[in-house]
């Protein structure tokens, strides 16, 4: 069942994508990168607190996957969730306000980085428990199937998340009930400092698809078009009622595990540097200029626009009030 997704340009795939769509994908990646760099800065200034897991380096996975979705499709996310949220259309201002614990944030300041959710955009939420969202993704897919809406759910999780019991239970549910869900494993080689090769007996997480009799696909997670191709196929399959797929995007986090981890000691400088050379945004920029006839000025304009949007988001968040004390007691029961 397993195959390696290449960059084959079939009809409906990235090669046939309109320029506007391609530029939109580029914009998505840029927004994530800028958002995370800014969040890092604000964390250093103690304007954002708690713990933040940055998505830098993995942008092609979230944006490539979400570009294959309809607006009414669902995603579930994990602790490294900012990228997924932005890729699904999440608003930077509401995200930033949430990170700063403000009343105007996505969750009224009650959730923070690990719990951002957006009902209107089908973002079921980031999640602080590894594996916690995997059965929930199957549940959203079951609901879509029973309601007959044609919606698909994409569930993002990490190589570490692949080892928790919920992974097995979720994939088995999805497979036996042919649920419209696509499990996207972002294999960034580490779960904190634990090397995936030492925590997993198979070479690829996608190899485990065989155990559920579903397609398992490996894709280069630094190549947004490859991710888009692979997820598109899995999404189409899910919409046709043929059931789930397990995708594995080989990727890398450029930063430490979270704000409290420098990200050294368990991986070599050379390894980090080699992956930084495979920056997904730089790669896509090269693709766009070399093959899609986009010029640097257009890309720079996108970068600048995104920077402006971000600046406005930060200003909005800074100017917003803290939640009122009464908020402590609301939203607990329906």
């Amino acid at each position: 069942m397993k195959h390696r997704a290449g960059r084959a340009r079939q009809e409906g795939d990235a090669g046939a994508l309109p320029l506007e769509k391609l530029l939109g994908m580029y914009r998505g990646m840029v927004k994530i990168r800028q958002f995370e760099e800014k969040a890092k800065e604000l964390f250093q200034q103690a304007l954002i607190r708690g713990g933040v897991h940055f998505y830098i380096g993995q942008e092609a996975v979230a944006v490539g996957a979400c570009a294959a979705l309809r607006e009414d499709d669902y995603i579930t996310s994990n602790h490294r969730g900012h990228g997924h949220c932005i890729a699904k259309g999440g608003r930077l201002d509401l995200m930033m306000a949430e990170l700063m614990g403000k009343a105007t944030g996505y969750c009224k300041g009650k959730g923070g980085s690990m719990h951002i959710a957006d009902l209107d955009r089908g973002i079921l939420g980031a999640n602080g428990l590894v594996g916690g969202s995997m059965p929930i993704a199957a549940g959203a897919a079951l609901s879509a199937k029973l309601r007959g809406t044609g919606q698909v759910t994409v569930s993002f999780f990490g190589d570490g998340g692949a080892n928790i019991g919920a992974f097995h239970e979720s994939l088995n549910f999805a497979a036996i009930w042919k649920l419209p869900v696509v499990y996207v494993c972002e294999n960034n080689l580490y779960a904190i400092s634990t090397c995936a090769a030492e925590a997993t007996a198979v070479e690829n997480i996608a190899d485990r698809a065989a155990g559920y009799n579903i397609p398992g696909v490996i894709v280069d997670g630094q190549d947004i078009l490859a991710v888009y191709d692979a997820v598109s196929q899995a999404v189409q399959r899910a919409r046709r009622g043929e059931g789930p797929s397990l995708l594995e995007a080989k990727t890398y986090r450029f930063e430490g595990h979270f704000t409290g981890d420098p990200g050294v000691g368990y991986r070599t400088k050379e390894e980090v540097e080699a992956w930084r050379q495979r920056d997904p945004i730089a790669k896509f920029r090269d693709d766009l200029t070399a093959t899609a006839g986009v010029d640097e000025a257009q890309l720079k304009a996108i970068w600048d626009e995104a920077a402006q949007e971000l600046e406005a988001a930060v200003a909005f968040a800074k100017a917003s009030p803290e939640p009122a004390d009464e908020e402590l007691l609301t939203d607990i029961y329906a």
Partner: protein
Amino acid sequence: MAQMAYRDALNQALREEMARDPRVFLMGEEVGLYEGAYKVSKGLLQEFGPKRVIDTPIAEAGFTGVGIGAAMVGLRPVIEMMTFNFAILALDQIVNHAAKISYMSGGQYRVPIVIRGPGGAAFQLAAQHSQSMESYFCHVPGLKVVMPATPADAKGLLKSAIRDDGPVIFIESEVLYGFRGEVDEEEHLIPLGVAEVKRPGEDVTIVAWSKTLHLALEAAEALEQEGVSCEVVDPRTLRPLDKETILNSVRKTNRVVVLEEGARFSGVGAELASLISEEVFDLLDAPVYRVPGIDVPMPYARNLERAKIPTKERVIEAVHHVLYRQ
């Protein structure tokens, strides 16, 4: 005696027990190469090797069960939960298995396992990463529940927990890992189930454990200035509970405030309030007064987080309350 941080006292306890007893081993996420998410296992992999310090995949239910199996047939595992929030995933193994195997097997099997890691709130880690879970575990017959507040207690109690022949839930505190205090560097054991009066006093008893002990001591210090003398009792082990030390203090002061970071409803404080009213009701000059966490999940925003957890001000107010002062 030496000054050391809470995390180093725990580290010393692990090192001494591992050196003393070859059956003791440490297992959990990131305990080896990374030396623990909070560096409690610093140097242990190097000293004892990978057979005694075992890194696991992220699978709390799994590695807790693995520990239980190993404990049933000859070893004495110490299982590290990266934080106790994740022990919720292992509740089946802890509650249905570790706690009951001795009883269900008619005493044939023992489960000498310690499940340890930090619990409670730290700094704005929000609802899923800030939980005080002692009351979950205290409710389960078969489990012992230990919550040290000082480096000395951390060392002495962890050593005793490792030597205990049954399952011990050992809840540390994320915000105390850097807290320093005097620790006996020699063999230092504190028996489970023995409370300690951390500050003697006359007018009001404050019962507090783990991080909130320090809040109680701060409040007692402030109250001293206004002429109120508080006795602060730290149960250290919540189950089995050293009832006598607590009751003796109440017999002396006739007024009690119970401090607890966890939510009020069905909290450990409810058990203490019940115990005190059952045993020394006639001696009370005021109803037992509780200062618990507010009954809501932990919010992220800083101002709301502060409103959720007990503060020194709330403790002082509570003491005034049981003294009928304004």
